[in-house]
């Protein structure tokens, strides 16, 4: 966490939401709010990051996240370079550090990093020159801080405040970096009850120590919830030693209108995407009035603009 902050407590890297003070999370959300209407204007740009070079270092492929970061950077008038490093050409750390050093020599100001290994963004942040900032766009199972933030932004937009909410995260928490980031954000922002719901095979050991209540029964876990976050179930988990089938999973842990009715009547349904209809979530719910899944996407640009602006401003 110290790695992320400067001596006077300003954000220098965004690697994980774990250990970031509430004030910084709130500042990011507030700043994102002010970037919302840039997208409504004719000239969807502000000159804040003009002359800055942002490099997208994606060791794991992703079109959605990369595109959102690219749009956000361009709206800040930054120059963006995309590097998709396939796993075959990169497999040793030498390559990572060499790549980073070469790009730094090309006057990079910021790296947006996605990697299959937990801790990869930390690793890169420890090696870059002091003036360069690193944004973690997802590292292994560990963290996806901008996703966590945009999910908080969504909650704040629809619910106003955090201090009186019950939030449930449903699904494969074990393998989810998004879930971990969400849990850190929710607990830091003061949500009094954070629940995780899933079969034992998909909930990691000791997750209670992150400040959540564990439920294996979805009906019990959804009772009285204000926010329900559904996690994507990866294909390779569906028939494995951990789960027998998508059908049985959907029966017990999928969100249907009947199960949704157990939550508060004004509960909102979120999903970091992309959705598996009929596996985690019934189409009726995904397309229903309580779903805020589509708006979540638009908030992602404003949140990433806020993060990039906060990391770049101020003398290094």
């Amino acid at each position, binding site marked *: 966490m110290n790695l992320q902050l400067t001596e006077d407590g300003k954000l220098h890297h965004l690697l994980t939401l774990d250990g970031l003070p509430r004030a910084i999370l709130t500042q990011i959300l507030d700043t994102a709010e*002010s970037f919302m209407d840039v997208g409504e204007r004719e000239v969807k740009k502000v000159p804040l990051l003009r002359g800055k070079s942002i490099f997208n270092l994606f060791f794991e492929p992703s079109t959605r996240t990369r595109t959102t970061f690219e749009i956000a950077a361009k709206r800040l008038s930054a120059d963006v370079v995309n590097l998709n490093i396939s796993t075959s050409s990169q497999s040793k750390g030498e390559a990572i550090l060499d790549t980073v050093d070469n790009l730094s020599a090309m006057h990079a100001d910021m790296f947006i990093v996605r990697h299959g290994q937990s801790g990869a963004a930390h690793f890169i942040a420890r090696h870059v020159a002091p003036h360069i900032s690193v944004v973690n766009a997802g590292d292994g199972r560990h963290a996806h801080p901008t996703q966590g933030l945009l999910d908080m932004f969504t909650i704040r937009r629809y619910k106003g405040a955090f201090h009186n909410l019950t939030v449930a995260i449903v699904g494969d928490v074990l393998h989810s970096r998004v879930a971990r980031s969400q849990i850190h954000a929710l607990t830091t922002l003061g949500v009094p009850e954070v629940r995780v719901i899933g079969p034992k095979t998909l909930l990691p050991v000791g997750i209670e120590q992150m400040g959540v209540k564990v439920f294996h029964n979805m009906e019990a876990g959804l009772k009285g919830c204000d926010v329900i976050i559904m996690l994507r179930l990866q294909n390779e988990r569906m028939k494995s030693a951990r789960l027998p089938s998508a059908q049985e999973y959907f029966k017990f842990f999928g969100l249907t209108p009947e199960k949704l009715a157990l939550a508060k009547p004004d509960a909102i349904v979120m999903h970091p995407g992309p959705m598996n209809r009929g596996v985690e979530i019934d189409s009726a719910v995904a397309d229903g009035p309580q779903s805020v899944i589509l708006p979540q996407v638009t908030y992602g640009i404003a949140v990433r603009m806020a993060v990039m602006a906060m990391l770049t401003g101020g003398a290094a």
Partner: protein
Amino acid sequence: MNASLPEAHTLITRLADAIAPTLTPDTFIVGVHTGGVWVAERLHALLKCPQPLGTLDISFYRDDFSRIGLHPQVKPSNLPFDLEGRDILLVDDVLHSGRTVRAAMNELFDYGRPATIRLAVLIDRGNHELPIRPDFVGLTLNVPKHQNINLSRLDDGHLTLSLA
């Protein structure tokens, strides 16, 4: 409050009197956060301007972003009208270096292309660093570099000027 400074509302009235003769009904008044918005609100009322009031936050257009970073409290810019081909009256409380006005104009042009922009300021304190001059000014004052002139708003809405 410094005895040698006039009352803010006196200056605002003086400004309104200077602006009124040349103000067209199609002119849009736009205030620059935060002091400029307070002044713009008063002017908008005094001049009985029929158009909606616009407000600008220039945080994203400042030229000192690299040095001092993003201001923690960014207020929303609100221009509830189409700028294209319009006459704009840009309003700020204190004109000093001119950089705020430059940023405000840059931002206005990202919303659209106005026909004209005229500048009204409550106080012009000199030491301009850019070729920017007000069209309407409440008071011209030569304030030494080490001093600050501030417009504040009290709880009851009353505006007051001070020199520090």
